[in-house]
């Protein structure tokens, strides 16, 4: 088992109730993430995955509970947290009228990458997501898969200690998706910690060291994927387990 020294991120009964909402979007989530692992935050639509990630990335104030990241409280020490994390948002967050390189350059500056390193970091990022060829094209001309890859490239420019990825493979072609998954494993091998949300269970089983499954803002299962499947009995894979746990009814977005 991990020692406490290996825990890079932990939350304690995290609660978030949006203003005007009747029930909390995140309802007492407690989890801990080991250094250098890929941690999967799984759940159907509306489970509270994005909300949880937003709190961890200093974008949202929790209504209750606390979260500590690299020894910093995400609320009180938000500024200290910001330089150390990377976020791949659920939606493409790039300037469409700028080229990939211009986007990367600007965000590298905002991430305070030292000027002498910017050039090499941009090339490294571009290489990692295999966009070097199209680096000087405007992002608006990119395909969905290319945009997703570029979205990822921005978040690793500063070699963050923890990289948050909110559904980084949603709605793209198989090639781009496989490439992204492959690269995430590579990043892990370089020592980066990844916190990753998805509702593709197959994907999670493939790359995650640990997962929590949340539904309705609550943690309904947590552990290593293989172990979870084994313990449940009668399930062959994470997908089946997931359906057993969360039910088969549709989860259409209403927001």
């Amino acid at each position, binding site marked *: 088992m991990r020692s406490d020294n290996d825990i890079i991120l932990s939350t304690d009964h995290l609660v978030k109730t949006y203003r005007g909402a009747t029930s909390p979007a995140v309802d007492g989530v407690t989890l801990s993430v080991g250094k250098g692992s890929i941690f999967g935050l799984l759940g159907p639509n509306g489970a509270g995955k994005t909300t949880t990630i937003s709190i961890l990335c200093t974008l949202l*104030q929790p209504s209750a509970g606390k979260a500590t990241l690299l020894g910093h409280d995400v609320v009180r020490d938000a500024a200290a947290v910001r330089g150390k994390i990377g976020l791949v948002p659920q939606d493409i967050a790039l300037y469409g009228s700028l080229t990939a390189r211009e986007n990367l350059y600007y965000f590298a500056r905002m991430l305070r990458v030292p000027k002498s390193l910017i050039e090499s970091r941009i090339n490294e990022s571009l290489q990692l997501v295999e966009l070097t060829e199209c680096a000087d094209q405007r992002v608006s001309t990119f395909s969905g898969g290319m945009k997703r890859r570029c979205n990822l490239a921005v978040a690793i420019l500063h070699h963050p200690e923890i990289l948050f990825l909110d559904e980084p493979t949603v709605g793209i072609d198989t090639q781009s998706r496989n490439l992204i998954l492959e690269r995430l494993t590579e990043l892990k091998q370089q020592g980066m910690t990844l916190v990753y949300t998805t509702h593709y269970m197959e994907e999670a089983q493939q790359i995650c060291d640990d997962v929590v499954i949340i539904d309705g803002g609550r943690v309904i299962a947590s552990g290593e994927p293989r172990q979870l499947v084994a313990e449940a009995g009668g399930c062959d894979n994470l997908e089946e387990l997931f359906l057993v746990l969360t039910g088969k009814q549709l989860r259409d977005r209403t927001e």
Partner: protein
Amino acid sequence: MLLLANIKKELLLLSRDRVSLLVLFVMPMVLVLILSLIQDDLFRATGGAATTALFVNLDEGELGHEFEKSLQDNGALELVKSLSGKEIDSAAARKSVFNGEYQFAIIVPAGFSATINQSAEDAVRGALRDEKVIPRSSRITVIFDPAVRGVYRSAVLNALQLGVVGLELSRKGAVFEKLLPEELQRNIEAQMGSYAPTDLADQLPRISFDWTNQSLISLDEELASPKKYATLPTSVQQNVPAWTLFGMFFIVIPLAGTLIRERQEGTLTRLMTMPVSNGSLLLGKVSAHLLICLIQFGLMIMVGRFILPLFGTPVLELGSDPLALLLVAVSAALAACGFGILVGVVARSYDQAAIFGSVSIVIAGALGGVMVPVYVMPRFMQKISVLSPLGWGLDAFLDIFVRDGRISSVLPQVAALWTFFLVCLAVALIVFRRWRQGY
């Protein structure tokens, strides 16, 4: 400095948004061209320059000429007596006004001198003999283009009235000078019969009536706020700064637009997870757009100096303090950008920002005297116009252009513009900080 990187990005984004730039630069130029040219004539009329009018003199005597001369001396009217080389008659004058080629025609009727001389004599004799007479009067006809506005019309009528009164007075004076001795002689003879001296008229002191033309009282126009409207601007001096400010404030839409787009497209969320301060994000936007405003300003000044004169307007006179001019331009641009960033923070969608932004600019423009100069507004509207930041800017520009204003004299407006900017920015920063803290 992250601020510089932010400015660079904003400029890059702007440079990729050709349509917005085109609107920002071309719209005020087109507006200023159209409005300066439309209003050129109006400003000449109200600004003290002479108005041209057709003058038809059907009189055979000397009084028609005398009237003409007094109008010309008075300086309010410039008289045109022939059209394309031909002396005009009253029918041609009427037609020309009807067609809108001239706005006024003044027609002195035939027999004008004879009638006036006769009437003056009747009136003076009646007065000397203490009899009641109603002298015949003569008419001078003034034909107006119906499109001529009331103020303008009464200005011309006043000038004519002045000429008529002067003429009457000098006529009556001359007749009095002639009749007084005759009447005295007649009276004395009637009372003293043959004892009366025959050369009485020669012994009377000579009376000259030259004084009828000498004015003893002159009207010295002075307005309650002495400096303010002492000199009126030319149409170019009014319209160039007015529409420049209007165009500059339209920066609100692209500026609010970039902020809203960043909110909607998630780049702002992304930035908020990065170690960059709120100030350098917002000030980056403000600075880049400020630069655009100043380029707009420079272009508009060029239009006023070099392009408008090609169409026959006066050259834009910039006053004598370029530093004050720059200070006002920067302050107005800041106010515009501050408002833009505020709208960008408060509006919920681009459409909302565009509609709210443009409507509020049009209203503030109207109040501030962009469309209709403040000095021709009704008094209570003049009071309300003090509320418009465009009004502050315009007032300061006019002060520099027309009233030889200096930095010290435009300081109140500059301070108001800065205050407006700082308040807008402060509110935007407060709202922005709350977002960032994730409430």
